[in-house]
């Protein structure tokens, strides 16, 4: 039994299995994380990443398998126990309390070890300075930006002795610049001996940051590799398997005449935590995709609400279709004028969870002759739903299936299909591939490109900057309710859009950009 290891790995998982009713979330998973290693856990939504990290953090009990901590078998009872061992976790959905200050939030997580608050505040200042994460301990969390909130979560782990830091999709809420800063911090931590488990589905980031990667697919380990030695394509293959198409580059095109014109759209938000739209102007041309980037909560919801007609605006002239101002029109009237809309929330807004796919198809499709004299044409509606399912390869038993029982990717394909089948002249899509697996995302992108090539004007609002660069012909960004300049995608860069996302719209171009401008 003489293992060659002089020091055992910091954490070893052996045969971890977790079965939920109807699904095996983790199937005999083995994993080694060494000291001072940045280890990626890569996989699609539903591959079992979240369950596995909850097992490590003591939030979920595995059905089989064992954990070894510094070589010794251990049963992590609960998160408090995990923290005592030196395991820290940064959740994707922050576990913060908005009405409490940074210090109070951190004190809560530390339990009895927190000590008195002034001393803790001092410690928070020290740690945040040491790792380059500026943070004011006395601020209340509701006044912090998303990036700052993440810092609170990370600092919360670092004020205690830490040996393993788990980060769940930490970059999904950050601007590219903030991602860079985060990586500097993480590398510094690893150099000091802390192990890092970096959970992500973003291949570039894993390749840029991680020493080793374990790839999960459908609850099993489908591969282990050194990410720097792999290409994004080969990593993606391990994630999705051989039979799923992986997205490609799409040709960029020039739009024709503008379909949607927005001029000086200003709207004060009614929600206290909402964002005021400040004099937003842009065009979406027929035959192009305009992408709007931005970190969540910078006015996307408000802009989409104003465009879809769900929120009323004062200046009716601010939104124009070719035949005139539409600012006073209801969502239904705008749809009748050629607009289609794919909202961010699939369940509850894009589709009614407890209604069948057929009925959901009717919800926006009723304008296309599915309703005659106030009566539903059931046969036609079923045909319409069946066409959507067939054409967009929605995996479902049939048209009577409830929307809620579809996976996110399949439901999104159905919703986008429903809108595209109505042959809109303008399609507005919010976060079209959010939480969707690679296969479905590729299908959705292809459908959007196809619609574009048929001459429709398309507006895509997304937090996924890679996606926008892939499919948009022109690109801009929202920050604090203001819109950046809009540039043709080939003429800008992720760095520049990142600056826009952070609110820096200045014309401080790099020499290369100035030359090309």
């Amino acid at each position, binding site marked *: 039994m003489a293992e060659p290891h002089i020091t055992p790995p910091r954490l070893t998982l052996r045969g971890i299995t977790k079965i939920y009713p109807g699904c095996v979330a983790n199937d005999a998973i083995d994993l080694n994380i060494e000291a001072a290693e940045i280890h990626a856990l890569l996989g699609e939504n539903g591959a079992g990443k979240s369950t596995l990290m909850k097992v490590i953090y003591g939030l979920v009990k595995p059905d089989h398998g064992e954990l070894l901590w510094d070589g010794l078998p251990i049963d992590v009872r609960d998160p408090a126990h995990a923290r005592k061992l030196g395991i820290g976790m940064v959740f994707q959905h922050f576990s913060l309390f908005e009405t409490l200050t940074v210090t109070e939030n951190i004190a809560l997580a530390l339990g009895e070890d927190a000590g008195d608050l002034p001393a803790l505040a001092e410690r928070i200042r020290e740690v945040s300075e040491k790792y380059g994460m500026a943070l004011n301990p006395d601020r209340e969390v509701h006044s912090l930006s998303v990036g700052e909130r993440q810092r609170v979560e990370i600092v919360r782990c670092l004020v205690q002795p830490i040996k393993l830091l788990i980060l769940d999709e930490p970059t999904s809420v950050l601007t590219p610049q903030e991602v860079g800063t985060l990586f500097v911090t993480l590398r510094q931590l690893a150099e000091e001996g802390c192990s890092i488990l970096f959970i992500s589905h973003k291949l570039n980031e894993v390749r840029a940051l991680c020493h080793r990667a374990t790839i999960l697919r459908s609850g099993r380990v489908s591969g282990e590799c050194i990410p720097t030695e792999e290409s994004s394509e080969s990593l993606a293959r391990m994630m999705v398997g051989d039979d799923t198409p992986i997205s490609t580059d799409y040709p960029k095109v020039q739009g024709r005449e503008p379909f949607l014109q927005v001029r000086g759209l200003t709207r004060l938000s*009614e929600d206290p935590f909402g964002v005021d739209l400040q004099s937003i102007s842009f065009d979406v041309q027929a035959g192009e995709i305009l992408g709007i980037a931005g970190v969540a909560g910078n006015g996307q919801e408000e802009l989409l609400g104003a465009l879809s007609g769900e929120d009323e605006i004062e200046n009716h002239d601010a939104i124009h279709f070719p035949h005139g101002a539409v600012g006073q029109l209801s969502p239904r009237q705008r749809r009748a004028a050629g607009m289609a809309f794919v909202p961010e929330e699939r369940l509850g807004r894009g589709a009614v969870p407890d209604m069948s796919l057929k009925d959901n198809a009717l919800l926006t499709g009723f304008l296309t002759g599915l309703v005659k004299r106030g009566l539903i044409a059931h046969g036609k509606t079923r045909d319409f739903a069946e066409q959507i399912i067939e054409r967009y390869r929605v995996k479902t038993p049939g048209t009577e299936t409830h929307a809620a029982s579809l996976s996110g990717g399949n439901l999104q394909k159905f919703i986008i299909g429903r809108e595209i089948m109505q042959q809109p002249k303008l399609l507005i899509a919010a976060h079209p591939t959010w939480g969707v697996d690679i296969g479905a995302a590729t299908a959705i992108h292809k459908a959007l490109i196809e619609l574009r090539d048929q001459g429709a004007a398309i507006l895509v609002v997304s937090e996924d900057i890679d996606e926008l660069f892939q499919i948009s012909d022109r690109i801009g960004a929202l920050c604090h309710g203001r819109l950046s300049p809009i540039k043709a995608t080939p003429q800008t860069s992720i760095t520049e859009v990142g600056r826009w996302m952070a609110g820096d719209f200045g014309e401080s171009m790099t020499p290369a950009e100035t030359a090309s401008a």
Partner: protein
Amino acid sequence: MDIDLLSNILYAMVRTGTPLLLVALGELVCEKSGVLNLGQEGMLLMGAVVGFVAALLSGSLIIGFLLAILAGVSMSLLFGLIALGFSANQVATGLALTIFGTGLSAFIGSEFVGKPIDGLDPFALPLLSEIPLIGKMLFAQDLVVYLSFALFFAVYWFFRSSRAGLVVKAVGENPHAANAIGLPVMRTRYFAVMFGGAMAGLAGGYLSIAYTPLWAENMSAGRGWIALALVVFASWKVERVLLGAWLFGLASILHLVFQGLGFSISSNLLATLPYAATILVLVLLSRNQVRARLLAPISLGKPFHANS
């Protein structure tokens, strides 16, 4: 108005406000943890009847108060079991608790209606109670009133400086996040509910042993509801609960004051003042949405399941 009359009004105001203060402090802690217990009136009545009967049969006021508290806690545990243990709708459970408590207290007390006991006497602190105007109000009261002062300061300190207070606030704001960082959500909520029960029980005992030492069916006369309104009125701030309790106390003795001064205003009309004030405060609060959202416990009334 001479100073003696004013001094007496203030004295009566605090006495009348004391049961409101006790119930409202308990409900405040309960709501801060995210649990809305509308069963205050039922717990109050159970505390009153059990306290009175125990005091009458044992001849000891202390036993009366202790059993009153125990009755309140038992009722609150019943609420906790249904609303927390089985995640039932808190509003429905609370209403049921009030109806149950009202009926059960009438049943238990039917034999004891109108029987007298020697109630709790005021205990004037020497010297301090001689202070003009506020001496009688603050220092010539009975022991439960003094206890209510102490409890007020305790709850104030609890939320201001104690870690446990922080945990209660966190659990009430975001139980899922609290669970994720390892705070005992259910245990915290049970304790908060039980504290609410103990306070309502004590307030009930105060009504039937000290305030008017006798038992009459439905003697709480809606004080449990006023206390619930009071918590909203105070916008979940401890110091405003004290102010509000005394203000509401004053409003409910106003008709006596006006009678004394020779005005005739319907006492029923005056009794609506606390409710009118609460509605007004609610309107003012909801005008400013930021403040409204930051003040009320965000997860108030929402059941929590550990694995969702």
